[in-house]
């Protein structure tokens, strides 16, 4: 060795090296959350969705039961003053969508699920895409992702009657959702539902002006209510069977309505509907013209991450889309790894 050191100086150097490496490793572990058992991580969120027996492997961790459809979005051009996104310029753009039920159980009886949803992926020829996952509730159950996590934990404590009471006391906004869940009629078809983005997003037009908006899909089909006492008597898959049959008989349509927030509206809180009378705009029509069962359908491997947006739409101060993106990613990572537990049936038949 060219430059031998005294033993004490060598020891000091080793201590310094250990401190540098140990400090870096600790900072990394801290950043990763390994020292933070209470950090609300996407993995903990996903775990909270799981029923007591564990998640249904190979399926989405929530909205696990669904059916694919294809069709198109026909923009009428009315959206371009609000957003420069290509998807709003007059034209017809292909859609891969999914009708679904808000449940972690893919084997659930259709009639028993309160929340129904739709996922849409709209692609434009310039390579951009817009993914949106909407539900039929007019507002969300709670104000923040952390409150939603607390709701999942509280509602999982079936043996503790005070859990939900305590939750409702701490998060009074759930009252509105509870009232909706109790009173809103159940329709007999996915085609008769109105689906709402609930979250707000920012539209930017060609001049660079921003508008905070929410959007909804308004069904062309007239709603027919299923009496509450009949819901459990319907076939287990009556919604999937009905939509397949209905679309086979003719394409189904929804108008896409954009609602523009006024200054001061609660853009960050999806549990609060905006006051009536806000400016609304119909920007186009969604058409479903083919329904395909999920195992072999084009929607099965799509993660309907609501932050996959074209230029001209971006996330707002609403904290949910970021949380949804993080949580959906974990759900997607898990279920794609579990494909063997939910194999495409076409492949099975070939074997």
């Amino acid at each position, binding site marked *: *060795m*060219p*430059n031998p*050191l005294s033993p004490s100086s*060598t020891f000091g*150097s*080793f201590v*310094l*090296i250990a401190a*540098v*490496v140990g400090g*870096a*490793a600790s*900072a*990394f572990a801290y*950043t*990763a*959350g390994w020292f933070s058992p209470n*950090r*609300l*991580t*996407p993995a903990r*969120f996903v775990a909270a969705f799981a029923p007591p027996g564990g998640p249904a492997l190979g399926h989405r961790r929530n909205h696990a039961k669904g059916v694919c459809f294809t069709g198109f979005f026909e923009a009428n051009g009315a959206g371009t003053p609000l957003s420069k996104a290509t998807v709003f310029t007059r034209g017809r753009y292909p859609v891969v969508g999914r009708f679904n039920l808000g449940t972690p159980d893919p084997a659930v009886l259709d009639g028993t699920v309160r929340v129904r949803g739709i996922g849409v992926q709209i692609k434009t020829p310039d*390579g*951009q*895409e817009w993914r949106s996952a909407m539900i039929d509730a007019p507002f969300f159950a709670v104000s923040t*992702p952390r409150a939603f996590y607390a709701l999942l934990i509280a509602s999982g404590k079936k043996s503790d009657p005070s859990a939900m009471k305590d939750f409702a006391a701490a998060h009074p906004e759930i009252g509105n959702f509870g009232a909706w869940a109790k009173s809103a009629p159940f329709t007999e078809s996915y085609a008769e539902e109105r689906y709402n983005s609930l979250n707000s997003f920012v539209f930017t037009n060609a001049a660079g002006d921003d508008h905070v908006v929410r959007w909804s899909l308004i069904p062309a089909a007239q709603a027919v209510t299923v009496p509450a006492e009949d819901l459990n008597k319907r076939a287990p898959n009556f919604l999937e069977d009905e939509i397949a049959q209905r679309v086979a008989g003719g394409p189904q349509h929804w108008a896409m309505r954009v609602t523009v927030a006024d200054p001061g509206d609660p853009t960050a809180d999806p549990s609060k509907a905006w006051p009536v009378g806000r400016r609304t705009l119909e920007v186009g029509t969604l058409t479903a013209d083919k329904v395909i069962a999920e195992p072999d359908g084009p929607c*099965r*491997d*799509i*993660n309907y*991450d609501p*932050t*996959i947006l074209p*230029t001209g739409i971006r*996330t707002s101060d609403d*904290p949910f*889309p*970021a*949380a949804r*993106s*993080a*949580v959906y*990613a974990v759900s*997607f*990572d898990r*279920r*794609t*790894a*579990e*494909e063997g537990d939910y194999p495409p049936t076409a492949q099975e038949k070939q074997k």
Partner: protein
Amino acid sequence: MIAPLGRFTLPQRGLHWLMAACILAMLFIGVAMVSTVKPAHLELVSLHKPLGIAILILALLRMGVRLASGAPGLPADLPAPMKLAASLSHYLLYALMIAMPLIGWGMLSAGGTPVVLVGGVRLPAILPQNGLLHAALWSAHQALALLFFAVILLHVAAALFHALIRRDGVFQSMAP
């Protein structure tokens, strides 16, 4: 006295320290973004993608410079196992610098997620959409990220060992 080992060329030293900053930032951004549901998640993801592509470009450039300029030799008295460890860990670092961005890009492609860089620039998919492929690449990306950080810690420890204890000129050959 510092043994006359020679130094890496200025472009090599510049690339090394620039990439050191990028890669360390990248690894911290990576573990942070997958551990939070806060709005920072999206901001970190939107940094992670362009930074990954930047690292890929820099790594390819650096490999070219390395092939053209070579590297100063290790001290003659360095024990053979340490020479082997030095050589293997550098091959591993180069492999990870190039593989990690490609695996990440491939994983997004297989998952059907658009790869959007700054200014709305979109990269094409480099793999067909496939669930199992996505899952395999995701696992690889995660495992190799941890390996990458571990190898970097080893690299830092070895560099400081050369600088503080052996004082054999190896650290000076790459010092800024």
